[in-house]
């Protein structure tokens, strides 16, 4: 029955033909510019001026060396010292890696507590997250910067990690549901064996939901790796690679501003690592995406 239906589904109907045409156009519009950017990053400026679309007459790797040299943030940091790629990479690892770890950790802690301890307050927190998701707060950046500065949390890592240690978002709901689905009998058995609450949380329940946490971590990490406006606003002295690319694109260096291949080469510093991560984890990431969150 199911096979018959599948055959019926796969027949070339008008729907499939239209879909195929529209989708192919879309795929071309996505893949071709990316491919064009990668190829252009290997072209010399003169080559590009006369040959915008074709393959490079000579594959130039020096673009990467030059872009590496000019890829810096200058004049935006508090001490006005230029920041180069190695420091930006370190900042990006702290920003995206450790920041995401704090974010996922906080979501897990609050989701665990509210899912496993049936206090009234847990219900209140769950409802609060739902309400916050419904009510949009617009233009709170000014008040946030002023407040964060007053608390001494502006432009430093402690302040950044503290800001990341939040739980109000879609992933809280996803984690809450996943943790709730872990049978209580497992924790009860561990409790009888003498495990404390802390041990149950970290050594019994955590491994059960590790797969989901991993996917949330990966998706959040990629978002943070690519994000630059938060860093620009709250961490101006600690530029990340994305922030660096924004500065690089708007820099006044004549070598860069006049050369399209050099600007696209700058993009490759962010583009290539993400593509590699995507190639490695694409099954996990795409297979686990559900409702803007993740599914087990």
């Amino acid at each position, binding site marked *: 029955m*199911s096979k018959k*239906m599948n055959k019926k589904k*796969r027949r070339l109907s008008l*729907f*499939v033909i239209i*879909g*195929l045409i*529209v*989708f192919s156009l*879309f795929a071309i519009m*996505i893949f071709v510019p*990316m491919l064009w950017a990668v190829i252009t990053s290997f072209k010399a400026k003169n080559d590009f001026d006369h040959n*915008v679309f074709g393959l490079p007459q000579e594959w130039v790797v020096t673009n990467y060396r030059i872009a590496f040299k000019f890829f810096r943030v200058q004049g935006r940091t508090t001490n006005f010292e230029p920041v180069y790629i190695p420091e930006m990479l370190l900042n990006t690892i702290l920003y995206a890696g450790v920041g995401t770890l704090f974010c996922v950790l*906080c979501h897990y*802690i*609050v989701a*665990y*507590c509210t899912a496993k301890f049936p206090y009234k307050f847990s219900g209140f927190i769950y409802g609060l997250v739902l309400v*916050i998701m*419904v*009510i*949009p*707060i*617009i*233009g*709170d*950046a*000014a*008040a*946030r*910067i*002023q*407040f964060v500065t007053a*608390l001494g949390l502006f432009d430093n890592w402690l302040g950044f990690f*503290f*800001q990341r*240690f*939040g*739980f109000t978002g879609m992933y809280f709901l996803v984690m809450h549901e996943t943790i709730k689905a872990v049978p209580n009998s497992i924790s*009860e*058995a561990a409790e*009888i064996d003498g495990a404390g*609450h*802390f041990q149950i*949380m970290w050594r019994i329940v955590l491994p059960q939901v590790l797969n989901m946490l991993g996917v949330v971590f990966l998706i959040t990490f990629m978002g943070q790796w*690519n*994000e630059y406006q938060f860093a620009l*606003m709250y961490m101006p002295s600690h530029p990340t690679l994305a922030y660096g*690319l924004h500065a690089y694109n708007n820099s006044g260096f004549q070598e860069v501003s006049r050369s*399209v291949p050099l600007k*696209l080469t700058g993009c490759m510093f*962010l*583009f290539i690592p*993400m593509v590699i991560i*995507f190639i490695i984890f*694409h099954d996990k990431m*795409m297979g686990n*995406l559900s*409702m803007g969150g993740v*599914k087990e």
Partner: protein
Amino acid sequence: MIEKNQDSILQEETNETLNVSLQSAPAGAMLRQRKARGLTRKRSALLFYCLMMAVPLIQFILMYICVNFNSILLSFKEYTPSGEYVWLENPFANFKEVFTELKGTQFLVAIKNSFTVFGCTLLINIPLSLFFSYYIYKGMVGNKIFRVALYLPNIISSIVMVTIFYYIMDDAIPLIWEKLFNKEIDPLISNPDTAIPSLIAFSVLFSFGSITMVFSSSMSSINESVIEAATLDGCNSLQEFIYVIFPLTFNVIKLQLLAALVGIFTNQLNLYTFFDINAYSKTWTIGYYLYRGTMAGGPPEYPFYATMGLILTLIAVPIILSIRKLFDKFDPYTSQGGKR
């Protein structure tokens, strides 16, 4: 099965232990002991709960409640040359200034552009995303490669996509145009007249991948027996979509529509990424207006933008909540007796 066995073994062991204890100790003392143990366990659970929740709650109080409260306070303050925020003599001066600005030409342009973007999301993004997601859901030809095409823009930094798109629109397309039609055209993004349609095209192209993924995931969670029943009843693809898929995924569609509605007030149309603070005034959106003002104006402008944010929130919240209610009322699934 193994879990169940383990549970029953553990239960038996516990019962045995309790029986032994009950036989060897007087009943009253044992009960007291159990009560005390239960109380200790409850107390330790509460202590653990409080300890774990403390830091996240402090963070929430400071970064959400206090920040938003500070927004209210800032709207009654002004920045002095000495670098302090002091209460205004006329407490509503910022509000007056904001209302004047809201009627100004620049803000009206921002409103117009923001609504145009919303219109495009509503009329192009959502219908096309539904079509694409149904295509993927049905596992049609090439759906795997299309999934990658949809997903890829979401993992690449917007700043990378913007840079690539900028040069495609400014360098490559005019050249293609010239070759195809033998006619020169201006670069599309650097020209203020063509910038806004080009930016909207970029926004539509690179944002509907994520919406499609969300819709197709939601469709894939529909019970297959429901679809099989519809097929047996003689539903064709279009009927299946209209009468089965659409009502069952309406909840997710509703969320995306609400997100698009919120986007009227927050969507920057990537203007800051494209132009930093130097975007053409013709292209501004409300989101860009707020972000640019905060970034370019610095501390002296914070009270003004905090007031503007407050006023826009007060405008947006009732609109969003009313439309949400409206969606709930006209939900094709619940209105036919279904329960979410």
